[in-house]
């Protein structure tokens, strides 16, 4: 199941703070995204990923129980090597080494809280565009691979 219109993209929000989740849902809804699921329990993130097959994950880093790094680690095995699944980190942690660690753990972009709504939406849009371009190219790359 693949969606190719950005506003139909399936977006999964994982953040332990309800306020953050509600705010992000409303921001996305206001910008026309209709397919948003969220959880404040990071333990549910992997199950939701399996069920919802998101095009983009908005992930908090510091959460009780499974933190954002652990969630990315668990998702790593589930994400096929030839797919581009963007993970956008939203965190209040300003330490540069945390940012580097998150990016090397599989995150594709990083936004620090408090964030600017326009900036978050632009980053989401850019990541989704990249994902969809990647999805369009995949069959071509696969057929090229078969031809050779």
């Amino acid at each position, binding site marked *: 199941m693949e969606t190719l219109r950005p506003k139909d993209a399936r977006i999964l929000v994982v953040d332990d703070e309800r306020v953050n989740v509600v705010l992000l849902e409303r921001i996305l809804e206001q910008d026309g995204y209709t397919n948003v699921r969220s959880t404040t329990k990071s333990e549910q993130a992997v199950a939701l990923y399996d069920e919802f097959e998101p095009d983009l994950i908005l992930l908090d880093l510091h959460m009780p129980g499974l933190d954002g790094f652990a969630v990315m680690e668990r998702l790593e095995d589930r994400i096929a090597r030839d797919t581009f699944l963007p993970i956008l980190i939203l965190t209040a942690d300003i330490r540069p080494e945390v940012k580097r660690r998150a990016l090397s753990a599989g995150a594709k972009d990083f936004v620090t809280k408090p*964030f*600017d709504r326009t900036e978050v939406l632009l980053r989401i849009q850019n990541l989704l565009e990249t994902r969809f371009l990647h999805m369009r190219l995949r069959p071509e790359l696969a057929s090229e691979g078969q031809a050779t």
Partner: protein
Amino acid sequence: MWRRYGDAIYTLVTFAVFGFETLALGALSISFLLGRTTGIASTPVEGVLLATLTSTASALALLGFFLLGYHFTSTLRDRWHVEQLDAWTERWIGLALEDTPAEQIADGSMPRRLPRAAVDAVLSLLEVVKGEEGDRLKAVLARHGVDRLLLRHLRSGHLTARLDAIESLGKARLPQAFDALLGLLEHPKPVVRRMAVRAAAGTLATMTPEPGPEGPGGRFTAALKGASLKSGVAQESLLLLETRAGAVLRDLLAEPDLGDRLRWVALETTGRLGLADMAGEVAASTTHPDPELRAAAFRALHRLGSVPEDTHASLLDALRDEVDFVRVQACHAAAFLPAEVALPALEPGLGDDSWWVRRAAASSMARLGDDGVAAVTRAAETHPDQAAREMAVQILLEAGVLDPAGARLVKGVA
């Protein structure tokens, strides 16, 4: 009251124990009473015993019911607070995202003085959003006098009230609180200074930049210089400045009379933030008389990935510094010198007395392209010092130039 988890189990267990005790004591009291009526418990001693039993049973029953009542009320209150918080959050999100017009928010149903849940909700949201949305929420706080209330609490004689106010202002990032927060950097209590500098830094990060010492950045720099803060606290506050950190760090490093501790913090933070355009300011500390500061400057240059040309000479001198940890950091930074300059200067480091210097020298050499790898390989085979040969082999292994079999072979040749 003081536990966050397991309240329900605790209450049930306590109530069960108290209930059991109460029933047992009640049964005992009744049997004494029955005994009295039948003439068994007729002495004064038995009367006293009976009164003691009855009062203990009553006290336990009272305590048990109080405990149940307390937790029942607390749960109800907590639930009510969460509902209030959710309702206010929805309301403020509507305002912040302009879903709900400001007039509708400020209608007759809005109390003049905001309830606690409303303030908590707006502060939580201000921790997440900034920009226009954040400004709309800050205007709510000002309209309802919350900012003035928090500023008043900043001067409170009660430490808890003062700390709560600082924390709230740190979340709200209100420009009108900036100078009051800076004023607290001279407070005698370290906890107040620590929270105030964090709140002030977060606030400065959202304020409009104004150049010069009278601007907010200049005022922050001046306050930071005068404050007695631990290195970690000062460094955290500089990181919290986000995009404004560069200007403040530049001001700090340009200050000739800056204290050693704060200079060290500024060098470390510049390196951690990777502010590559500040290599010149960092380089000025590479000849500082304090070895800690020289080492910090070289570590920062290494993190920035560049060594200004006019610092080459001091870096080459530092490779022979009398203090080993300065030599270590200088070796790391030397990886960013041109190979023809760095390699001959780093090679003596392979035979250094310090393991750390040998390792830093070999690893920097291996990063200097093919010539560097060739020099380390040569050292692994022919260096007269066994420790140098072993370090060179180790670095080649780590760099993937040698595999374990190749390493054994090289060691054999050597």
